[in-house]
């Protein structure tokens, strides 16, 4: 214990000066005091956030450079290849963000993967082989099918995953229906999807899963809906 004669009070400290008036404190009375607070250290560097910023820089940088190089070096009728880099960078970023960085719910991670992989596939398809719509016709519905099968099995075996990732679960089922809807509507921007088997299979599974959610798992589903939509 030390004393500040200017403030007229005792200070339990190893400081040399009074914490209030900054005048020198009297000599210690020798009684050993335990520390009330951990010693100050500089705040540990947030490695994750540093790494995150590096990844953002890398993704944006590679896209920007490829746009520039592509536009400057492209001949009269040369190809535009920068979209591949851009889609790749976007996918790499999403992959990093959800899988590595954010400790999120399992279902949400999977749904984000499904969405970003679909965007990547669609982009590559659109710019590399625009003659045939293999992404919407096969790749995306098959991917959605596989993902939704996994989600169904997980949701039935680990109930808490379903409860946590409820929103992502439904979003993923909706994505499973999209290619089939586009085929049915014959939307222009997607041109004709070559075959409807893959989109149909994926849509059927999604519909069955949704049916399951509202019948067999009806109680949990109702409860989760109530939580999320209560006002």
């Amino acid at each position, binding site marked *: 214990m030390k004393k500040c004669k200017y*403030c007229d009070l005792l*200070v*339990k400290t190893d400081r040399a000066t009074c914490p*209030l*008036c900054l005048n020198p404190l009297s000599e210690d009375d020798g009684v050993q005091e335990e520390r009330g*607070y951990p010693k100050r250290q500089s*705040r540990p560097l947030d490695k994750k956030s540093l790494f995150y910023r590096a990844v953002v820089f890398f993704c944006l940088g590679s896209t920007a450079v490829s746009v520039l190089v592509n536009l400057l070096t492209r001949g009269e009728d040369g190809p535009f290849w920068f979209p591949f880099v851009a889609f790749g960078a976007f996918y790499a970023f999403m992959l990093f963000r959800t899988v590595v960085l954010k400790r999120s719910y399992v279902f949400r991670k999977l749904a984000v993967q499904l969405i970003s992989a679909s965007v990547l596939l669609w982009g590559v398809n659109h710019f590399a082989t625009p003659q045939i719509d293999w992404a919407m016709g096969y790749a995306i519905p098959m991917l959605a099918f596989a993902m939704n099968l996994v989600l169904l099995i997980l949701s039935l075996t680990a109930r808490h995953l379903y409860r946590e990732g409820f929103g992502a679960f439904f979003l993923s089922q909706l994505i499973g229906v999209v290619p089939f809807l586009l085929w049915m509507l014959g939307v222009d921007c997607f041109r004709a999807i070559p075959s409807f088997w893959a989109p149909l299979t994926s849509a059927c599974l999604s519909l069955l899963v949704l049916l399951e959610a509202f019948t067999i798992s009806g109680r949990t589903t109702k409860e989760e809906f109530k939580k999320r939509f209560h006002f």
Partner: protein
Amino acid sequence: MKGWSDLDNAAKIFPCTSNEERRNLFGLYFYLTEPVDPALLAEALENTIERFKVFKVRLRTGIFWYYLEENRRMPEVFPESPYLLSPIEPYANNGYLFRVSYFENKIGLEVFHSLTDGYGAMQFLKALVYTYLRLCGHEIDPEGLIRGESESVFEEYQDSFQKLYDAGVKVDTSEKRACLISGTRYEDGWLGVICGSVPKDAFKKVITEYDCSYTQFLTAALTWSAARVPHLFRKTKKYPFQVFIPVDIRKRFETKTLRNFSMVVRTSILPDPKVSFADCVKLVKEQITEASKDEAFLPRVYGNIRSEKIFLLRIVPLFLKNIVMRAVYNRLSERANSFCLSNLGDPGIPTGMQKYIDRVIFSNGATHSAPINMGVTYYGGKVYMTMTSAIMERDLQKQFFRLLTGLGLPVTLETNDLETE
């Protein structure tokens, strides 16, 4: 709890207004007489959380509101960080809205305000320390003061504000601007702590002399000190110094709820160095007595409850609500408080348990607009006044403690590391 619940009325504002500078956290710390065993503390926490199901929750985002959902994971204990009240990362903490820490012989509980208020947190920490001491092999009679020993009652989960609400009463949502303390902030979110303790008998004598309560005395002392540090107020000098004083109203409305249930009294006095301390006490006493009357504070509480009952507001999606609430909060509520003084009073610790506990400290977190705040507890014949500060200037603290010593009160200070190297 039916697996999930709405945030209580007072808690709704915190998730959307929280950020690095306004963490909406507060901390309670028990200093034991022997070093803490982390393994036993973890075991005690696992036992205690099962009894306090109301805190065994995590915060989730719905379409229209946030909600609290039962947390299936177990809370963990952490070594205390030198960075007091550092933000609680949901994923790093298994989703819990509180953090239990240990350091030498100290057990700390830092809580996000959406979960509960000081009273609720104190009940939890008391039960935790009680369970811990029992695990250490000490036989203690709970004397009916430890919630953990009684059965959990439905009332603990209740949002008592809703019970209180009377739609017929006229509401009051006006806020007056206050002068705001500004200074040089610690760089890395550091909070400086200066805790002063004064023997309670000596203190009692002084407040009897001034014929006021502890809270009234402390508010007056702060107002008096604020008048002597005009350089801390810069541009807002012309506004009154307004002390925000949360008051626990559980006794008044006979409820056992463990969620937020307090009202706010606010004093408003222009800082004037010519006003004597005795006059300050008189002014504060008048204002607090006036503001504590039902007809003065109920309209304010009702005002908050009413805004959450407006149908059009309820059906607005949460992200839009957040934008609106943040804007309103920044413009009105935050500008209305110069300083927050929270007096938890006597924690009510069983006599048999007191010999294992040296002191009980309450740290009230700092915010952007009110960078210095104070938490008060009485324990073991002493009054502990803990000033937590996000700025390096310590003039207000100096004036405050010098006022106390000037009145003949023996003050002992304890601080964390205040200087940056």
